[in-house]
């Protein structure tokens, strides 16, 4: 009772295909493989990992105080003791950059967490329920989107005041509308699918349909956008710092360091070069990762 080899092979291929289509683990591993082999995603992750590592380990290796002033050491050129030299108050530039990485990462992640945390549920409910809820939340989103880019964050900081916490709130609020729009669009498309209708017909409560089917279905674009938004949030937060309206001196935040360096741009341009390069690298990392995630999660968008 032996089965011809070719038939067995066919059956296995079919089974494999069936498993591939239904198993979420397989889908995840496919995404993972695409991401791992995507050059820009790899570069993005490597830069991001270096930043995290530098912000955690760096201050343990270079044991200077990032805040304490020592005016006799001001504007030292780079040397073995101070690889990137010192700033106008004699503080080690490299140590300030390393501590600055912590602020930048915290600012970026916290602001995007606010954006996703409020935007995702609002968009899901808005798209799924429709009607007045949708109309109301969409008009509010319209208004928030009508402020050009950094302007809403500036207006919020002008009212709330400067400082780390207020910058996070301001940049966080500016990131909300994009997530509302994204999740709403995907909720609208999922709402009409047969399995959601079936769930409803079976009497599954709306809240369960919402969180078990609508939200997970919108996660792919949200993850992509979150990565890109991290870059945007870092740019805006550092921009506020640059204008003197963000995290305040003497905190070693890259934007405010860059802002302070403007006064010495003719005598010591290095003080402007490195914080800017650091911001550029962080934003580049999240943009590259976002591109890679988009191609890996949704090849149609390529």
């Amino acid at each position, binding site marked *: 009772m032996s089965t011809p080899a070719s038939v067995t092979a066919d059956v296995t291929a079919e089974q494999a295909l069936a498993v591939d289509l239904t198993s979420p683990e397989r889908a995840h591993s496919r995404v993972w493989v695409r991401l791992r082999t995507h050059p820009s995603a790899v570069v993005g992750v490597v830069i991001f990992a270096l930043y995290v590592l530098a912000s955690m380990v760096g201050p343990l290796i270079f044991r200077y105080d990032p805040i304490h002033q020592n005016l006799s050491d001001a504007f030292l050129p780079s040397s073995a003791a101070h690889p990137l030299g010192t700033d106008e108050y004699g503080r080690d530039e490299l140590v300030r950059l390393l501590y600055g990485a912590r602020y930048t990462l915290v600012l970026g992640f916290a602001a995007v967490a606010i954006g996703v945390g409020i935007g995702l549920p609002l968009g899901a409910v808005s798209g799924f329920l429709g009607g007045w809820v949708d109309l109301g939340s969409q008009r509010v989103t319209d*208004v928030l989107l*009508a402020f050009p880019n*950094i*302007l809403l964050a500036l207006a*919020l900081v*002008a009212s709330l005041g400067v400082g780390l916490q207020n910058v996070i709130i301001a940049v966080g609020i500016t990131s909300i509308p994009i997530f509302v729009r994204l999740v709403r669009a995907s909720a609208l498309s999922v709402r009409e699918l047969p399995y959601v209708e079936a769930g409803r017909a079976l009497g599954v409560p709306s809240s369960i349909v919402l969180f078990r089917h609508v939200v997970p279905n919108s996660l792919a674009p949200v993850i992509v956008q979150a990565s890109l938004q991290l870059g945007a949030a870092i740019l805006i937060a550092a921009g506020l710092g640059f*204008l003197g309206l963000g995290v305040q001196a003497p905190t070693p935040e890259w934007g405010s360091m860059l802002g302070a360096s403007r006064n010495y741009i003719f005598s010591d341009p290095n003080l*402007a070069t490195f914080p*800017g390069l650091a911001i550029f690298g962080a934003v580049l990392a999240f943009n590259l990762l976002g591109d890679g995630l988009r191609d890996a999660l949704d090849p149609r968008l390529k």
Partner: protein
Amino acid sequence: MLTYLVRRVLVAIPTVFGVATVVFFLRTLLPGDPAIIIAGPQATPEAIANIRRQLGLDQPLWQQYLSFLGGLVHGDLGISTRTGQPVIQEIATRAPYTAQLAVASLVLAVLVGVTLGVLAATRRSTVGDLGISSGAVFGVSMPVYWLGLMLIVVFAVRFRVLPAAGTDQGLASLVLPTVTLALFSMGLVTRQTRSAMLEVLGQDFVRTARAKGAGRRAVLIRHALRNALLPIVTTIGLQFGILLGGAVLTESIFAWPGVGRLLVDSIGSRDYPVVQGVVLLLSVAFITINIVTDLIYAYVDPRIRYS
């Protein structure tokens, strides 16, 4: 087309109203009494009460809100607490500078971005494509405030070929601010043009055009680019918002006397009527540009008007 325009404008009115409301209520979040801030720490209680009356701060909030909206309808944005001039006048003297900078940057970004995007799409997966695509990601990741400083260091400090700040050298003064502001948009337009062109170049009508013997340039421009224009136009419209926001930073770097710099100075001196005025004006400008974009969109693709 006219019906479409009217409908678009009507839809925008509640948004403008919403923006005005947000701008008004943001002021109420301000810590401290604006009258005390304006009067200074040594002012007598009578002087403070006087300023409160002048600014209408002694009235209940809803009344202040209504008179704020009433003023807006008449083009009255209040009085600058710093200079004593009407806000609308402060903005009017600076708006042309911002418009000049934003338009110059948009033109540069579109010309370079569309050209590079088409070049990259037609050379897909070559070294040229890789170079252009990488350059575009670099462009959208570049902080304008850093780019501006670096351009000053190179072109104004080292080579001394262009002025570092101000507007007194005519076109030469415009070069560095324009390049600084344009780079981000240039990157986005390049990316959008490349992907829109790639999508169109794979379609049947392009193959047909090639098969019937149309020249390479004609296929690219008349058949492919024209059909790829829709998403590109949308991106360009959205760029304006980014340019207006970026202008705030760029103007601050190059001491460019536009509304962006006015905004930053006013936040610094707590001149809230001016802050409100500038934020409102830039948002309304952005909403208007979006309507114009939609109209161009409807013109390029007549199907949109009827949907």
